[in-house]
């Protein structure tokens, strides 16, 4: 909590950044995990409830994840403008490649839902979701690369520019990716457990529990690797959040363990709470380690329009809730048909 105070007014922005980025990361996690599950299922042949739900919800989840990504995109520009811009300029085409990758991934997801592709053989079906997965991992890698380069010293930038490089190589990038992919598995396990709650059989839930546990383990391993590499210096305000992340990690692990041992309701509840808090806490730790670099420009203090935004935020939330309730009331609780 002390992370958000004593920043001359930047704290509110930082809080919004932490929350919206956590939302982005959760949804992205679901997308990565769902694409991986769909690919695995296609490789092994046959179908299952979880794979069907994954394919069904992937396009919407990606749309929502991207939309959620726009908010941190704005806030990062407010808080770390010069660094963010410099990194994207230095990576240039390499960075911009995420746009065609995302468009391609998006349409592959839609393709993966069609009846025509469902009738295809294993190899071709696996290729469709595998290619989408590869595109998303590429995008994740790129954002981490951007983040790492933005945090680098100006001398690194100058050398990067002088040599005309397009890629920023740093071992921490792969380690961070491992953390995110692990967390993605956990986010997906939770999301899928909800989406299939009426249809999933005990084996499905057990598998999701295993995926969640595995993801948490991998993420922890990634964090240890980063720590060993010496590039993880979490300043004081982040320590509280790190502790919270550890607790949430443990709660989520208990939840997944409950899923593995067939206690569905308890497992889903614990895992959901644990994973959500874990994402928020990780997002806060992530900001804590760069909050010292905020370029707070005096012009930003009292920038007009904040009440407009808060008003619209409330209206928008109300509109979304209203839409959801209206649709629910008229659909009853039957599972959704095709899109």
């Amino acid at each position, binding site marked *: 909590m002390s992370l958000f105070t004593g920043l001359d007014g930047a704290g509110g922005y930082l809080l919004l950044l932490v929350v919206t980025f956590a939302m982005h990361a959760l949804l992205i996690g679901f997308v990565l995990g769902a694409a991986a599950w769909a690919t695995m299922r296609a490789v092994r042949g046959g179908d299952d409830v979880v794979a069907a739900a994954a394919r069904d919800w992937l396009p*919407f989840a990606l*749309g*929502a994840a*991207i*939309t959620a*990504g*726009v*908010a941190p*995109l*704005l*806030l990062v*520009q*407010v808080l770390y*403008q*010069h660094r963010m*811009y*410099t990194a*994207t*300029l*230095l990576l*240039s085409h390499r*960075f*911009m490649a*995420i*746009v065609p990758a*995302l*468009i391609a991934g*998006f349409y592959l997801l839609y393709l993966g839902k069609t009846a025509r592709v469902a009738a295809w053989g294993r190899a071709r079906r696996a290729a469709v979701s595998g290619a989408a997965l590869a595109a998303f991992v590429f995008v994740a890698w790129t954002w981490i690369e951007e983040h790492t380069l933005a945090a680098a010293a*100006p001398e690194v*930038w*100058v050398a990067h*520019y*002088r040599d*005309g490089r397009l890629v920023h190589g740093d071992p921490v990038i792969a380690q961070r990716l491992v953390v995110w992919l692990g967390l993605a598995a956990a986010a997906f396990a939770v999301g899928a457990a909800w989406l299939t709650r009426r249809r999933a059989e005990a084996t499905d839930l057990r598998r999701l529990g295993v995926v969640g546990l595995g993801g948490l383990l991998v993420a922890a391993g990634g964090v240890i690797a980063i720590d060993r590499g010496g590039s993880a210096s979490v300043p004081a305000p982040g320590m509280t959040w790190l502790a919270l992340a550890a607790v949430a990690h443990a709660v989520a692990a208990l939840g997944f363990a409950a899923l593995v041992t067939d206690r569905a309701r308890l497992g889903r509840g614990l895992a959901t709470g644990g994973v959500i808090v874990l994402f928020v806490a990780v997002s806060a730790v992530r900001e804590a380690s760069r909050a010292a670099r905020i370029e707070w*420009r005096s*012009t*930003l203090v009292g*920038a*007009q*329009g*904040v009440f*407009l*935004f808060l008003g*619209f*935020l409330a*209206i*928008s939330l109300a*509109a*979304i809730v209203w*839409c*959801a309730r*209206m*649709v629910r009331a*008229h*659909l009853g609780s039957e599972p*959704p*048909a095709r*899109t």
Partner: protein
Amino acid sequence: MEPTAYPVNDFGPAMRGMVIGAVGILHVFLAQFAIGGGFVMTYFQWLAGRGVPDARRFLDSFFTYLVLISFVTGAMTGVAMWLTTIQVGPRTIGLMVDEFHWIWATEWCCFTVEIVAGYMFLRFGARLPDRVRLRLLAIYSLASFGSLFWVNGILSWQLTPGAWVGSGDVWAGFFNPSFWPSLLYRTAVASTLGALAAIAIINAMDLDRARKHALIARAARLLVPMAAMPLLGLWFVAVIPADSRAWLTGGSVAMSMFLALAAGASLLLGAYAVVGIWWRRMFVSGATAALLLALAFGATAAGEFVREGARKPYTIRQVLFSNAIAPGEVARLRRDGSVTGDPYPLRDAGRYPTEQLALGARVVRLQCLACHTMKGANALVHLGGGWSIEQLRLNIAKLQQTKAFMPPFAGPASEVEAVAQLIRWEASGAPRQWPVSDDPAVLAQIAGWLDAAGTSATPPQVRKP
């Protein structure tokens, strides 16, 4: 670090303006179509609720998918737009973010609602009663119009910052002089695009001619705002700065041509809509609708070109020149040198036989590459390579008088000389040997020209159309 010190990328033979233009036109077209498509769907849903035959069938046709595909790609190209804007003008977008981030955050709220309502309709629409469908579509349309409303204020502010310049008041900047004409203009375009695409789809539907005709006549109602476009265009031209207007009306041939194209295309479309479809109830074939859509695309492209071009020599009028130098910084840069604080070395430093030429290359990179290339589009070598060295010195020192849509040169005499030498050197085929020019008399003469030209952009009243 210097606020201007961003690394500058080279886009090969293409100018930066072309890069942003290509993404921009595609994005604007898709986004406006997604908005207009929302209008069409809401209207047809309302008709369906009132029992108009085939209205629901039309909605469940390909059209819904078309709108939703375009709102997905519209969203993606929107992100692309943002990232491209950073690539071509970090300081410009940075300033816009500093000033308007809460407005953008508000736009984001609208956009989120648009995505959620749109997807709900796509996913569950077939199983919902008309009343709920209408509500979902109305929310989708309102939210997408909301996005347009908010972002339009920021974009129009770039050309006409209005009273914001003196007061720094965000609302004065947002509701700037060109806010209403451009909002209404874009709304009319959106409605037109939606209607035209609807007509094309209706043609492709499996219905007999009379039933198609009935649907087309309904869809054509959304073409009517088109008739107001010439008036809205005039209103827009009336509120933009005098010098921008002067180029549109003949000062720049390319600009006037594009304006004529935009105006002509929208006039044709509007006349056709009102006279042909609405009044005379003519039948519109799929081919005609496609042709009209192409015309509308042309009008959009030309309109965006005019909007981008009319801002020169600024990206944000009176605040930031196209090369990311602020008017208030020119005097200091003339004293201290424009590239002294730029930490980024040249990538091709080995090409230049002398320090002076390398300095010239750094100055060109900072001050000229926003609108020129060395040898590609709008190339400096083609424009000034045939001039004598004296001509080059004079014209570069008095840059804002050479062409009123260039900013003042923002460096000392030695930098003018370095750029002039660089252009001569490149025009001579980049020989391995090149003399250094450091005659104090020459430099003094250039300094005199710089002083005579002053540090401001050419004020509107002095500009010859």
